[in-house]
């Protein structure tokens, strides 16, 4: 099943995004923790777009695909090209005085979902977040696709 909404790339629309997602995920086979993790990853991704919309003129498109043994969420915007996963991993070990502020959103996206990917296509940034049922943490997604 595929559901799509379009929302303005402003933070004020975040509650609407979360509400839309919560309703859809409730009917999937994902367990509660996986639903929370995926919701949080989407929040971080949407916030990233809203805070760095980079000249987007159209609304952000949020597409949720459920079915089979996975839930896939695609966020796309027509802002300037920006690959969030090109950023270096944040410093997670320095002491409190030296610890840089920021950079945790993308790190959390990576850590919370089974697969996160970026591509630039047809003038749009496309971010895809995927969670498998049952959870396949630690399993490379290519193995899953290959049915190994």
């Amino acid at each position, binding site marked *: 099943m595929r559901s799509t909404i379009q929302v303005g790339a402003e933070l004020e629309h*975040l509650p609407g995004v*979360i509400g839309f997602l919560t309703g859809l995920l409730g009917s999937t086979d994902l367990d509660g923790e996986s639903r929370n993790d995926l919701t949080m990853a989407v929040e971080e991704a949407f*916030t990233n777009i*809203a805070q760095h919309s980079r000249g987007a003129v159209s609304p952000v498109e949020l597409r949720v695909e459920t079915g089979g043994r996975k839930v896939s969420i695609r966020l796309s915007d027509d802002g300037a090209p920006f690959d969030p996963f090109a950023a270096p991993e944040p*410093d997670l070990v320095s002491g*409190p*005085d030296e610890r840089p502020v*920021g950079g945790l*959103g993308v790190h959390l996206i990576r*850590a919370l979902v089974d697969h996160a990917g970026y591509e630039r296509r047809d003038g749009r940034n496309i971010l895809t977040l995927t969670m498998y049922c049952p959870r396949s943490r630690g399993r490379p997604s290519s193995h899953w696709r290959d049915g190994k």
Partner: protein
Amino acid sequence: MTLEIAESERDGVLILAPRGRIDAFSAKVLEDALRKAVEGGHRHLVVNLQDTEYISSGGLRVFLVTLKGMRKDEGSLRLCCLAPGVHKIFKLAGFTTIFSIYPTEQDALVG
């Protein structure tokens, strides 16, 4: 999705208890409450996260900025009663090594 913050004081220590979700949208509420507490002269704060069901990187940022500021002023920021989901995010963010986190409010007050 609202965030309400209850305040109480014990033994001269201000205790803030956020109830709800600390996300990118509501993190400003937490930021304002912490700033007001510091500007009001409180050098030692406890934040009880028992009723905080969710925290995003926006909330983590507020805690880190506050911690840095309080350390400069030789104050302290202690956290307690993290729900499992919130503790997981603190751990993923590497925050469990830089924050003083206690299982109960009483433990946090004692330090």
